């Protein structure tokens, strides 16, 4: 599959009248494809675009293994209709790295051994990237004692990270290392920005 141009993927079915022509933007590339209206974003990513990073865990919105970014926000691709995602910028785990340069969150998961079997990992990493972006705006979570005073990224406790990552299940139970990985990436980011500021806090 050639990378940087619009891809036309022919329909395999004879009953093409049931199919819709759609344009999906995934990892900064536009794909012109024909899909069944019933196709979830997850199935189109995996079966038609050969992007098998996002995983089909439960296929009913309970495990988070299929998490992708839609216009920068984390969503479940298994509960998203592909046809309704036109005009949205989708980012999957395949779209995080910059060439051979891993995304800092990918490096952090490797550094901290934030996985065992690895099946949930793409969803965990995408979710953790979104967590960092959300927390930059100091938004509250369920465990924030006062919703009006939410912690910023640098002040996220382990409890806050666990709650904010609770939409991603890990059956191997790699949670402690996943929390470490998120903190590692967070500290790498905020450490660069505020090395002095951090030393000044508690």
């Amino acid at each position, binding site marked *: 599959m050639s990378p940087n141009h619009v891809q036309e993927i022919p329909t395999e079915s004879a009953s093409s009248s*049931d199919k*819709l022509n759609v344009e999906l933007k995934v990892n900064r590339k536009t794909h012109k494809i024909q899909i*069944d*209206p*019933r196709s*979830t974003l997850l199935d189109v990513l995996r079966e038609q675009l050969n992007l098998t990073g996002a995983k089909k865990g439960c*296929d*009913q*919105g309970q495990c*988070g293994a299929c*998490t992708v970014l*839609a216009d920068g*926000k*984390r*969503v*479940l691709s298994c*509960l*998203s*209709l592909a*046809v*309704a995602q036109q005009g949205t910028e989708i980012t999957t785990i395949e779209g995080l790295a910059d060439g051979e340069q891993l995304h800092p969150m990918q490096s952090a998961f490797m550094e901290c051994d934030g996985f065992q079997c690895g099946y949930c990992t793409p969803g965990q990493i995408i*979710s953790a990237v*979104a*967590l960092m972006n*959300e927390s930059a*705006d100091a*938004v*509250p*979570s*369920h465990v*924030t004692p*006062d*919703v*009006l005073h939410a912690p910023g990224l640098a002040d996220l406790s382990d409890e806050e990270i*666990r*709650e*904010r990552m*609770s*939409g*991603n299940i890990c059956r191997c139970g790699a949670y402690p290392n996943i929390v470490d990985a998120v903190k590692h990436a967070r500290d790498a980011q905020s450490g660069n920005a505020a090395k002095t500021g951090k030393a000044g806090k508690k």
Partner: protein
Amino acid sequence: MKPFRYVQSSGVQDATRHVGGQAESVFFAGGTTLIDLMKIHVLQPSELVDVNQLPLSSIEVSDKSIRVGANVRNSELAWHVAIRERFPVLSEALLAGASTQIRNMATTAGNIMQKTRCPYYRDIASACNKRVPGSGCDAIEGYNKGQAVLGTSDHCIATFPSDMCTALAMLDVTVITARPDGSTRKIAFTDFHLLPGKTPERETVLEHGEMISHVELADTPSSRNSHYLKVRDRASYEFALASAAVGLELDGKTIKNARVGLGGIATKPWRSVEAERALIGKPANTDTYKAAAEAALASAKTYEHNAFKVPLAKRTLIEALEELMAQHQAKTK
């Protein structure tokens, strides 16, 4: 999934006419309930009318109310600074529900319209009056641990699962709808959902083709001093076994006004006027809260596996009130 036609609507009236014109046509927004239930054949619409592109995504803040568009996502609503400041119970309730991924998808209107998690409703091999009217209810004599203890009938005991709606039930909320004939109407939130009675398949007062366009939240004396407490089988990403949404207006140590919503235990978003009556005019202390909890659950009817919900819901309400008062005292000191 059964095949369906997908159409995008060009405007609110276009969407309502489209759905109104076809018996098996439905609105499609966040999809977190609809797509899930279509996959397991519980819902089998012939047409999905996508309303995501309609201009219903704004939160309009004014002095005495906040108007929320139907398409505002749960995360956006929970994180909005005016909601956090003026309706903390709503922000807390939203944040207690589902995961960030689902809250980023689920809409305000969709949350109001969400379906029960009753395992018999979700299993097409089971009898369920809500899914197939007249087929019976396998929950009443089945594994009914999660089922309701308030508002049930001999035809259905399914719990209404929403955290957000538990908060909306005790706030002053108006649902604004658009109808296929171009008219609009305003419905008090507490009148919006129906008790199951003999027709559990009818869950709201909406007519076919009628669409929620906005939800209006009016400030009340107790809405700023409000709190949500949810109890569940695990610490996160799980539906409530019991929850309480509480708001208190205080005159010194006396409760001047009170609002109470209960979740996880009722067949519709539950406002407990009985609990409120037991609180108003009384001193804000544990004895008063206990009396309110007794009043709230006085009409509870339990089944084989869910009797635990009665004491649990009482303790949840008492604890919610204690926590709210502790917060209040910390702030006013």
